[in-house]
């Protein structure tokens, strides 16, 4: 892969999905900080999830970590679409790593919702779906990294 190659489509997908996730996390963070009214929650019991002890890590809302994670994914994927970033090995490694960590965190939170809190928050479910799609979209990076190693 060199700078003249067309921008990787999987990174476009990651950028779009991550940006959508960023707004979901930002909405939940704004709610945690008392900046919004009640959560819009057509499906599930968002209040139960958001007021559970699992909604914070110490004093920090879990959604704050989501905002940081999604921001990192947006920034990395956008850089990876630029001519200077397309051939960069660290960009591929970083995208894969971020997506894997996000998937692991999301899986843990989904487990908590299902088996510990026993309530679902539609926004957490949407975020989990987005993270899963982001991880799947990041998998081609693995192929590229291997191809580069073999070359």
């Amino acid at each position, binding site marked *: 892969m060199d700078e003249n190659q067309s921008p990787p489509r999987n990174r476009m997908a990651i950028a779009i999905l991550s940006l959508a996730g960023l*707004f979901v996390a930002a909405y939940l963070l704004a709610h945690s900080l008392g*900046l919004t009214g009640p959560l819009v929650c057509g499906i599930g019991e968002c209040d139960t999830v*958001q007021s559970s002890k699992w909604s914070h890590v110490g004093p920090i809302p879990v959604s704050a970590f989501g905002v940081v994670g999604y921001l990192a994914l947006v920034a990395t994927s956008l850089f990876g679409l630029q001519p200077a970033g397309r051939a960069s090995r660290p960009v591929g490694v970083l995208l894969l790593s971020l997506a894997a960590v996000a998937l692991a965190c999301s899986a843990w939170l989904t487990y908590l919702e299902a088996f510990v809190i026993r309530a679902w928050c539609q926004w957490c479910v949407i975020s989990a779906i987005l993270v899963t799609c982001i991880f799947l979209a990041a998998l081609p990076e693995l192929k590229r990294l291997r191809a580069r190693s073999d070359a």
Partner: protein
Amino acid sequence: MKKFYWILGAVAVIGIGAVGYSVGSNALGKAATEPVEVEGLDNMETLVAKAQGITKGDPDAPITIAEFSDFQCPGCGAFALTVKPQLELLYVQTGKAKFVYYDFPLTSIHPHTFLASRAGRCANDQGRFWEFLDVIFRNQSTWAAKPNVEGDFVDYAGQAGADKKTFEACLKSDAHADVISANMRLGYELGIEGTPTIMVSKGRGMARRLMSFDFESIQSVIESMLVEPVPPSGN
């Protein structure tokens, strides 16, 4: 690549719009967040008629335990979660006493307290005051530090079993601001300066104000009043 940026831009616009709207629409509008002027409160009869406590227990119980309280006051939270349940178990549930809650929001030091009092009254409209009181005091340290608490109060109302939409409409109005303002005035007329203030009375007899609000102090006053003869009515 151009198409990609169009899609990304569209997601950004929708996202910023949605989050911005949820933050912007949180404005309390005409919600009363401070005491209001109520005519006629200089007249004691009008004041007593306007001021209204919220009662738990048998209205005909011989002993009345009245509390002047502030939802944002930590001492009131401690009282509500530790002392009040014991009083309820021993005296309210046995029909010996009734518990009457009066709002006394200390608005000069607690920015959310008047709205919290109104929230309590809005929950009371749906018969969920005492459940709401438990939830709001349990979560006091969470909401008291926030810049905006309306969303939290609606959540708490839901947890207390109230209909959230009805509650929210009430909270965003000026409902009950007059009663709470009258309760505050009644407290000032009674010389109350802090919260929680506990007053215990028997029948129509003189209320005894307690200097401390621990269970043992209140219990000893109630026990002594229970053995006293019922004071004659003032009629």
